[in-house]
């Protein structure tokens, strides 16, 4: 039996397979050790890190929606120093390839995070969360304009030799333009999508369900939108695209590869099934074997657009 080669290079970080965990849905990775060997995954993207520990939003942080959920966690995290001190050694012990997702309130904070994390030899890549609404620039999100994205990317690029991934917001008119801006700013890969801004209210109490009023929509509900954006981005840029959004099964993951993504990140699916990432990986391996596809590259981007004759 031929073992398919699922390895792929994600902007300088070569991973053994294209199944990654999505930031904010996988904790610091260690929480999954009871369920499986996390070193089997292509990489683990940890919860978004800020310079100082962040306490996040008040309760009323999640609400379920049809085939999805809204979250407004507010990026509660232990801060970069405790991450480096406490978590990194344990991820190294676990043999995991890991990526730091970073988020700052100012460009300077992003720069400081990138510089500090570049000192961690075992860190695989830095993923810049360019989809945060609470930043300078007159309240407009960094991720919402090509200029904002290009500038942020360029500035972080100047601070790190690590592979640099930029995570894009779907709350934009044209994702292709935004993806190109990240590429031009020096991103080694783009990952998308982050959550879509949504809202839920209780018609009886007349109050929002989330303390933050709005939140980010994730889960199967958003998959069609995520897939379309991954396709548009893959056509627009030369750097690898990492597809994210609503992936629950190997079939879902394969769809993102088919439209041109080089890898995928699995998010909300981890909540219902803690083994989701590894189940998806195994399903993907089985598919490649069954279909006798020798390598990821032989499948990726293979969407046929011409009509059947």
């Amino acid at each position: 039996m031929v073992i398919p080669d699922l390895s792929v290079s994600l902007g300088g970080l070569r991973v053994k397979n294209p199944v990654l965990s999505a930031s904010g849905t996988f904790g610091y990775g260690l929480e999954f050790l009871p369920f499986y060997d996390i070193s089997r995954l292509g990489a683990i993207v940890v919860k978004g890190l800020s310079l100082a520990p962040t306490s996040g939003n008040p309760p009323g942080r999640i609400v379920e929606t049809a085939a999805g959920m809204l979250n407004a966690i507010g990026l509660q995290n232990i801060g970069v120093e405790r991450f480096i001190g406490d978590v990194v050694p344990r991820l190294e012990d676990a043999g995991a390839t890991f990526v730091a997702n970073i988020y700052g309130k100012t460009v300077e904070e992003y720069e400081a995070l990138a510089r500090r994390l570049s000192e961690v030899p075992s860190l695989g890549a830095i993923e810049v969360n360019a989809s945060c609404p609470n930043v300078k620039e007159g309240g407009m999100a960094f991720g919402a304009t090509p200029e904002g994205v290009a500038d942020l990317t360029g500035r972080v690029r100047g601070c790190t030799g690590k592979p640099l991934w930029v995570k894009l917001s779907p709350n934009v008119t044209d994702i292709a333009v935004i993806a190109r801006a990240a590429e031009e700013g020096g991103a080694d890969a783009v990952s998308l999508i982050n959550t879509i801004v949504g809202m839920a209210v209780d018609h009886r109490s007349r109050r929002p369900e989330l303390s933050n009023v709005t939140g980010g929509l994730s889960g199967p509900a958003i998959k069609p939108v995520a897939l379309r954006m991954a396709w548009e981005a893959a056509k627009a840029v030369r750097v690898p695209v990492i597809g994210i959004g609503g992936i629950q099964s190997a079939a879902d993951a394969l769809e993102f590869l088919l439209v041109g993504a080089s890898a995928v990140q699995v998010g909300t699916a981890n909540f219902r099934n803690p083994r989701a990432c590894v189940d998806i990986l195994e399903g993907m391996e089985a598919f490649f074997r069954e279909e006798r596809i020798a390598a990821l590259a032989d499948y990726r981007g293979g969407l046929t657009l011409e009509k059947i004759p």
Partner: protein
Amino acid sequence: MPNDRTRFLTARIVRNEGRGEIFYRIEAIIPEPVRFVPGQFAMVSGWPGNDPLLPRPLAVFRSGGSKGKGKIEFVYKVVGRGTALLSGLHPGETLSLTLPLGRGFDLEQEGRSYWLVGGGVGFSSVFPAAAALGRRRARFEMFLGARTRGHLPPKEWTPGGKEPGRIHLCTEDGTAGYHGRVTDAVLERMKGLSQESVERLVILACGPREMLREIAAAASERSVQAQVALENHMACGFGVCWGCVVTVWDGDQTAYRRVCREGPVFDAREVVW
């Protein structure tokens, strides 16, 4: 009873039935027995499709079996879509379970006597505590509250029900036992206690937040140790989404703690009510 390693597994339902007016009990077979601390819970799903998407937290009610064949039981009340779907599942169908989860009650304290307080379906984590205390022959009394007689847990589920004076039933409409809220029964009984008894007392409570708040206030007033099992909406149940936090005291600051990981059982003094 030590805390077992958390696992994700598929269970086969062998029984799922309504009991009394509002409760259901579901029993399922799992590959290996699971040991749990009373107050610990499972994330439960099993309906097909992605809507509802998230699993539901339910306290582990009973668990048993022997090597190669475990058994697990939950009791629940239908309050919304997930629990309604659960109540529609049939023997032979499957459940997905992540368990055991969270930090349960601390029952291992020597020389203590325990009051277990369950409001509504809160008995689901209080009964396992009673059973564990019963096995240890520890001293305990149980206070069970409901709106009306038919909303009290069925007699046959109640552990240690034979010993006289041990179980205090309370109904708000007076159709069974003490006429009034379970908190009032607890508060009244606490008034009569000697200082010595109070110092030995540990209260374990699970129920509506308002009930827990009042119990916490009364316990704090007389410096009684109280452990409360909190609820919150959960996405993952094992500490990775940070969705289930409650506000607690951290010195004179407040902080957010995960109900699924640092809880669901908290020291009542820690909670910002």
